[in-house]
C-alpha cells in the first residue's frame, strides 16, 4: 500500500461570488498529523468539509489512494466511511445513547454483527474515558464528554484518516485539556489526522506538519519546528507574533 492516502489538486471552492478556497494542493500521508492554522475566514473549515465532501468543490480534484473520487452517492458514502470527521459542535445523535451513537455507523454502514459493534464501541469508549456513560444521552453530557464520545464514534469506523474541525473551540478551557489529551494519544498510536485548530501549543507539540492558510490559499506548508521558529510568509509571521504576544 502506498504511503499517500489523500491528495488534493488545484482545489477551489466558491459560494456565489465569494471565493473561499483557491488552488489548494497538498497530500496526506499515512501517519501524518497535520494541523491547519489560520485566522477565521481563511477557509480552513471549508477545506476540511470539501475533503469530507460535505461541501462539493467548485473545481479541482481529490484523490483517495491515487484514485479520483467518484461523484455518485454510493461512492461518496463508501469514501466517508474511511475518512471520519469530528465536528466543533459534536453532532452526536440526540435520539441515541452514547453506546448507540458509537454503534450506529458500524451497524448501518459496515454491517458488523451486533456483538462485534458493541465490542468496538466499548474499546474506544474506554480509551477516551467515556465507558461509564454508555447509558447517557448526549443532552446529559458536558461539552468535553460529548466531544470524547464523538471521537470514539469516529474511531469505531476504523478510519484511515480522521478529520477534526476545531474540536475544542466550543469547549471551556478546563475541558479542552481532556480532549487534546485524547487526540495526543491518537497521534502516538499513529492515527492519520487532519486537524483545524487554534491550539498553538498542541500544533507545535503533536503535529508533524503545519499548513497555514490565508485568504483561501495555503501559504505555508512546513514542519512545526520550522513554522513556529522561522515562518516565511509575512501573514504567518504576523499571525504568530500575535499568538506569542498574547
Amino acid at each position, binding site marked *: 500500500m502506498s504511503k499517500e492516502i489523500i491528495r488534493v489538486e488545484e482545489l477551489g471552492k466558491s459560494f456565489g461570488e465569494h471565493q473561499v478556497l483557491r488552488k489548494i494542493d497538498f497530500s496526506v500521508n499515512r501517519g501524518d498529523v497535520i494541523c491547519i492554522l489560520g485566522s477565521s475566514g481563511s477557509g480552513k473549515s471549508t477545506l476540511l468539509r470539501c475533503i469530507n465532501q460535505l461541501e462539493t468543490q467548485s473545481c479541482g480534484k481529490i484523490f483517495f489512494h491515487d484514485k479520483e473520487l467518484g461523484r455518485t452517492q454510493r461512492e461518496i458514502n463508501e469514501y466517508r466511511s474511511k475518512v471520519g470527521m469530528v465536528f466543533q459542535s459534536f453532532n452526536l445523535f440526540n435520539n441515541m445513547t452514547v453506546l448507540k451513537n458509537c454503534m450506529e455507523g458500524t451497524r*448501518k*454502514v459496515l454491517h458488523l454483527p451486533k456483538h462485534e459493534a458493541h465490542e468496538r464501541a466499548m474499546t474506544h469508549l474506554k480509551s477516551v*474515558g467515556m465507558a*461509564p456513560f*454508555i447509558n447517557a444521552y448526549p443532552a446529559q453530557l458536558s461539552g468535553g464528554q460529548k466531544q470524547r464520545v464523538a471521537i470514539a464514534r*469516529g474511531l469505531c*469506523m476504523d478510519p484511515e484518516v480522521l478529520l477534526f474541525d476545531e474540536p475544542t473551540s466550543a469547549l471551556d478551557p478546563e475541558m479542552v485539556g481532556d480532549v487534546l489529551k485524547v487526540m495526543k494519544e491518537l497521534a502516538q498510536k499513529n492515527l492519520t489526522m487532519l486537524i483545524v485548530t487554534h491550539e498553538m501549543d498542541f500544533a507545535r507539540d503533536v503535529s508533524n506538519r503545519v499548513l497555514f492558510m490565508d485568504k483561501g490559499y495555503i501559504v505555508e506548508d512546513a514542519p512545526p519546528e520550522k513554522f513556529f521558529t522561522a515562518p516565511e510568509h509575512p501573514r504567518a509571521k504576523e499571525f504568530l507574533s500575535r499568538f506569542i504576544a498574547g
Partner: protein
Amino acid sequence: MTNTPTNSFEWVWFIAKKYSDLFIRGTWLTLLVSVTGTILGFVLGYVVGIVQDTEINKDDNIVKRGVVGLMKAVSTVYVELFRGTPMIVQAMIVFYGLRQSGWEIDPINAGILVTLLNTGAYMAETVRAGIKSIDIGQREGALALGMSPISTMFNIILPQAFKNIVPEMANTFLTNLKMTSVLNVIGVQELFLQAKTAGGTYYKYLESYLVIALIYLVLCFVFSRVFALIEKKMAGQKDYVLAVEYMENTQ
C-alpha cells in the same frame, strides 16, 4: 307518552335517551372515519413530506433523478390542491367524481378517503417543518460516518422530528374529529347527520345538537389526554445509570 319534557334540559336528556342508538352509531362512525382517515393521512403525510425534502443529487444517474423529480412534482401539486380547497368541496368532488366514473364507493369509504387525503396534505407540511427543525449537524454527523441520505433520514432525522411534531399531530387529529361533520353532505351517518335526524321528529334541533356537542367535547377531551400521555412518554427519562463496572479508568 307519560312524561313529556317541560324544559330544554329535559329535552336534551329525552332526546339523548330516545335516540341513543342513533347517537351511538354516529359516534362510532365519527370515530371510525376520523381515526382511520387520520392515521392513513399521517402515513401519507410522512411519505409526501420526506419526498419533498429529498434533494436531487445532480451526479446521480438520469433514471434516479427523473423518478425523484417526478415524485416531487406530484407531491407539490397534491399539497397545493388539497390545502387550497375546502374539505366539504373535496368530499363532494371525490364522492361524486368516483361514482360518476363507475366506482360504487360507499359514503363511509369515500369519507375516509377524503379525510386521509386532506390530512396528508397538511401533515406533509408539518413533517417538512419537523425535518427542518432538526439541526443540520445531526445530518452531517450521520453522513460523515458514511450513512446514506435515506438511512440518515430514517434512523437519525425522523425519530427526532417525530418527537417534535407530536403536539401538531394531536392538533390535526382533534381537528379531524370535528371536521368529519362536513361529511354529512355525502351521506356519512356521523354525529352531525344523526343529530339532524334526531332533532327533526320533535322539532328540537337545539337540544339535539347540544347532545352531540357534548359527545364531541368528551371525545376531544379523552383524545387530548391520550396525546398528552404519549408526549410525556416520549420525553424520555431525565436520569441515566452510570455503568459503574467501567468506572476504574476515569477521573
